[in-house]
């Protein structure tokens, strides 16, 4: 029963019900109007014919009196066709005419009347419908002049029943069709509802099945599936980030805690305490740094860096950052090679772009070496170049280290993602994420590729194209 109620409640069924009612009303109105106009026309013709006959008989009566009338009627009754006549005396005796008798009721009325009469055709008595005008003549005589309109009545009947049957047929087809369409739609919707319930229950991998007909439901399902895929991806990302936050913050926190505990247990005194406290401060600073970076990334991703944009030379920023990092690279036995670049104006946040370049360089210096314990001077090389293209400017930082396997390149741009090989080295796993977020904020991108050997990081930013009408 609930299945039926659900079916009757479907939009498709309601649509067909409403549609059927509207269509029936329109069809009924059209047929009714035609019927009405036809009967008006027919009635007028009938009236005209009867009036003409009456005028004619009136002349006969005036000229020949009752007898003349009687004669004319007898004459006409012989070739009557559809016309009906009757002349009778005050007692109702039939004096002439093809109408044998009239009912009592009819006898006592005058003017226009519609009535049934009996007629014998081929020894069969049949009842027929007629319309007549009844006159009272002097001496109580009656004259009835009429027409048999049985055919017309039958025609009316036929039209009426045809209309009813048609409507009934339409009702069956329309509502039945509504139910059928409703059922098939209901099945499609039910599948979607069921899928979404499963997903709500926690199975994020479920997808809405497609029928392969590429109809609107399939298209809806495709976009819903795409949305589900994206949500699943985001949730997986969230989970990864929170797992990583938990892990990456827990490790230094417990190290910090253990150091304090060890120091407390130590009896040697002030010097030990001081050292432990110093180390604790350093650890806490690292934690704060990590949180700052997380906050910055979140802010950048929300697009909330509302500081004003400025126009500046990207080449100068790259040179500055390289100069900042050059001693660090040298200390680690890496030759930092900056290829000379021409002035390249970009519009954006200088500070953030400098930070992004710094992080990429930082990453290259930290992880872009082959990890020799005692690196020979200038054995490793990191080359930094700025390539001004037509609409973009690419800052390319290429190292000759171990590189990153292709399938991990996208991943390392995510928050806290650190590859196994680098887990033992210091770092928050946020540097490249921040650089990527800065790139996105400026409508650019950060891509990692193979430098054969090594890693090539390309920070691509849109170039500022001067306003030509604003020549200064």
């Amino acid at each position: 029963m609930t299945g039926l109620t659900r079916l009757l409640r479907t939009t498709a069924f309601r649509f067909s019900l409403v549609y059927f009612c509207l269509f029936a009303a329109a069809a009924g109105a059209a047929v009714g109007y035609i019927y009405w106009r036809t009967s008006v026309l027919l009635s007028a013709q009938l009236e005209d014919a009867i009036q003409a006959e009456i005028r004619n008989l009136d002349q006969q009566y005036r000229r020949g009196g009752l007898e003349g009338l009687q004669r004319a009627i007898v004459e006409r009754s012989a070739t009557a066709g559809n016309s009906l006549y009757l002349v009778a005396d005050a007692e109702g005796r039939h004096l002439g005419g093809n109408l044998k008798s009239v009912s009592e009721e009819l006898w006592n009325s005058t003017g226009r009347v519609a009535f049934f009469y009996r007629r014998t055709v081929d020894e069969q008595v049949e009842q027929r419908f007629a319309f007549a005008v009844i006159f009272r003549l002097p001496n109580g005589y009656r004259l009835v002049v009429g027409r048999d309109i049985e055919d017309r009545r039958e025609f009316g009947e036929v039209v009426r029943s045809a209309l009813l049957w048609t409507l009934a047929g339409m009702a069956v087809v329309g509502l039945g069709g509504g139910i059928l369409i409703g059922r098939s739609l209901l099945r499609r919707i039910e599948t979607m509802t069921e899928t979404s319930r499963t997903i709500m229950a926690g199975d994020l991998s479920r997808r809405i099945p497609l029928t392969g007909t590429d109809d609107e439901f399939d298209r809806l399902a495709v976009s819903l599936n795409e949305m589900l895929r994206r949500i699943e991806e985001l949730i997986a990302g969230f989970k990864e980030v929170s797992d990583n936050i938990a892990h990456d913050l827990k490790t230094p926190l417990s190290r910090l805690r253990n150091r304090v505990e060890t120091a407390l247990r130590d009896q040697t005194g002030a010097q030990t305490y001081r050292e432990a406290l110093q180390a604790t401060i350093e650890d806490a600073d690292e934690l704060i740094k990590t949180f700052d970076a997380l906050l910055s990334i979140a802010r950048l991703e929300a697009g909330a860096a509302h500081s004003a944009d400025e126009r500046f030379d990207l080449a100068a920023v790259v040179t500055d950052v390289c100069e900042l990092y050059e001693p660090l690279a040298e200390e680690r036995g890496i030759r930092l090679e900056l290829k000379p670049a021409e002035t390249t104006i970009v519009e954006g946040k200088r500070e953030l772009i400098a930070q992004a370049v710094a992080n990429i360089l930082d990453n290259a210096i930290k992880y872009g070496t082959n990890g020799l314990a005692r690196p020979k001077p200038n054995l490793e090389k990191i080359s930094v170049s700025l390539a001004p293209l037509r609409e973009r400017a690419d800052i390319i930082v290429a190292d000759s280290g171990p590189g990153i396997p292709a399938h991990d390149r996208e991943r390392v741009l995510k928050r806290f993602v650190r590859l196994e090989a680098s887990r033992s080295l210091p770092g928050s796993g946020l540097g490249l994420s921040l650089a990527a977020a800065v790139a996105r904020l400026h409508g650019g991108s950060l891509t990692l590729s193979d430098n054969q050997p090594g890693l090539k990081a390309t920070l691509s930013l849109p170039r500022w194209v001067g306003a030509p009408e604003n020549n200064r």
Partner: protein
Amino acid sequence: MRVLVVEDDVKAASYLANALRESGHTSELATDGETGLNLAQTDHFDVLVLDRMLPRLDGLSIVETLRREGNRTPVLILSALGAVDDRVAGLRAGGDDYLTKPYAFSELLARIEALARRSSPEEASPKYVVGDLVLDRLAHKVMRGGEPIVVQPREYRLLEYLMKNAGQVVTRTMLLEHVWDYHFDPQTNVIDVHISRLRAKIDKNYERPLLHTVRGAGYMIRDGAD
């Protein structure tokens, strides 16, 4: 040195007052903006430390009012915000330095001391001298014990900033801000390497080291034993 702290977080303010007392300074505390402005207008302080968000009157309005009245007391603005533009807004309102919460006391102290010194007249001195180390700002030259030392332009600016704040702790963040004009913390401590390069030039061949590392805080250049 006398410091006015305007901060509505009483706990944070009393920590700060303690830290100031321990480093030999005195401090007054106001917990809302109006009282803070009143104190700053009627009393003399060497440095003002203003929280940016305060009940009744915010930190930026206090600075603006004071500057309009011709009060030039150095102001350090504290803020829990911290995007680049917040700092810009703070400095534009008339603040002299800007620090984001949570901050390290050593950082705040170093900055307060640098601010107090900045307002003193010796700022414009053409020569900085620490022991036998001389930085001649007119000739753009560095000498120690009468011998010239060749330094790179950036090393010169690094040394100049350190010597300008001689005898005071200068944090890594302060160096990044004043020598490189960067307001972010690099992932790796790049400043330390720059310092050791500079140290190799000015200290390595001399008996008495002048450039000292202050653990957990930063660096200090001074003549004398540590």
